[in-house]
């Protein structure tokens, strides 16, 4: 138990060290809600200035713990009792953030990454598009520049992240048959365009991809069917 500015990042986010990225995400959202507005819960114990301090600490913690690369480095330092003060600024390159950078990372932990699937998936799927290096290299921060998101690519990305289709269906509430058909590019067995676009967009967001780009790319293939 320490004053909040002496706490480690896990303590600041009020989570255990072994939590999933999803839990880090939840903890961050709750902390933001608690300390950034005019929450009924804080004003009588903390001043606005103190809330801002907490919030700054929360932001710092989130920045490091929400990416596997920086989080692993942080854990190492924590275990070794090293200084973690200037971790963000000098020792680790913090990946640039996109609109929803965390979502994909978050789900990694839910289903443990399976080596077999990782090796298996890219080999069996025939694609016209070369799989970008970033997707091939496990644990690297992904970049999808030049990738055209067709069904098979979406499936590879999903499997890379160790996410089952069931989980996607459960979380997005999209019928699993549609998801299967989207990935299998069974264009004639998909719902009406307006629904398809909405599903694609949800699915893309779930994977942490640029939803607009995914819809555009996918619909291009769809129209050529």
């Amino acid at each position, binding site marked *: *138990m*320490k*004053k*909040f500015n002496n706490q480690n990042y896990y303590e600041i986010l*009020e989570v255990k060290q072994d939590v999933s990225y999803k839990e880090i995400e*939840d903890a961050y959202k*709750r*902390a933001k*809600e*608690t300390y950034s507005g005019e*929450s*009924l*819960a*804080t*004003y*009588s*114990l*903390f001043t606005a200035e*103190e809330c801002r301090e*907490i919030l700054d600490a929360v932001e710092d913690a989130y920045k490091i713990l929400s990416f596997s690369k920086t989080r692993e480095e942080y854990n190492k330092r924590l275990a070794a009792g090293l200084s973690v003060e200037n971790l963000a600024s000098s020792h680790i390159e913090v990946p640039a953030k996109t609109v929803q950078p965390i979502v994909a990372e978050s789900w990694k932990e839910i289903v443990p990454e399976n080596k077999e699937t990782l090796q298996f998936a890219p080999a069996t799927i025939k694609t016209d598009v070369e799989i970008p290096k970033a997707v091939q290299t496990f644990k690297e921060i992904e970049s999808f520049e030049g990738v055209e998101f067709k069904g098979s690519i979406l499936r590879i990305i999903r499997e890379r992240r160790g996410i089952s289709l069931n989980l996607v269906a459960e979380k997005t509430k999209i019928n699993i048959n549609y998801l299967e058909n989207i990935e299998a590019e069974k264009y004639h067995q998909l719902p009406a365009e307006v629904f398809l676009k909405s599903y694609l967009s949800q699915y893309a967001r779930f994977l942490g991809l640029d939803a607009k780009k995914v819809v555009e790319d996918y619909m291009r293939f769809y129209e050529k069917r």
Partner: protein
Amino acid sequence: MSFESGDNGNGKGSFNGQIWAIGGGKGGTGKSLITSNLGICLSKTGRDVLLVDADLGGANLHSCLGTSFPNVTLSDFIRKRVPSIKDVTINTGIPHLSLISGAEDYLEVANTNYAQKMRLLKQLTYVESEYILLDLGAGTSFNTLDFFLIADSGIIVVTPEPTSIENAYRFIKSVFYRRLKRIVNNQGIREIIAEVMDRKNELGIKTPIELISHIEVIDKAIGQRFKEEVFKFKPNLIINSVRTRGDINIGFSIKSTCLKYFGINMSYVGYVEYDESIWQAVRRRRPFLLEYPNSRPAKCLERITKNIIMNKELEEEFIL
């Protein structure tokens, strides 16, 4: 909580049940309503439950249960008008559920000390219930605080309103400092604790967490002891009358704020939805859990009861 075997006149007296105390500072947050319905939830599982109205001066637990104003109350026992605690125990008409009503503010007047309160609690255990639920009523009197601290589970009921939350913090703060004060004899440290209760103290100590760090510097052993106490102290939090998802989230925010401010890790065990059915049941002086067993608030309460028993917290996926 277990008490040693004692003599209650019948030769029985060991208790291995649980004492739950329901408090929370402000009046009108639904403490009695929640106490009575938690009691019913527990009794439905076939366990014997004793409800005790420790809301002295504002006793109304009997109304929540639909029983008429009792002829005998806790005061009769304390004033020795009746020989046994069982003589003031009323049958509520609900299976496995009995009640001791408290109508007069005898405890307050007599300013009972800690030992006397412990003795009273021990007497309560002679009723042979598996659960004893104490409805503490509003305020932060020493009686309220001590009963809260003695209980196996302290439960704080808050409504999502500024005044209720402020009072809940005041209550937690009072309980917290009372607990710390009880474990030190060192007058110097007691004075520091008293001073820190005022936020504008000269020591510049703003939060209880800072207080403990400060005391650790002065006396490492006491500082350590405080830390252990804080760690062990895990009150349960219930948010009553929620109407929105935001109201539910206030529970998480209160939990976080208490952790950051006091270092106390509360258990957010659940919330009770606002519902017209509760109001209707209250008017009819019937417990809503019996009147509307399938209503959403009833389900909320069942989950809360389960969480307290299982030592669990509200989980995101169970939010209705």
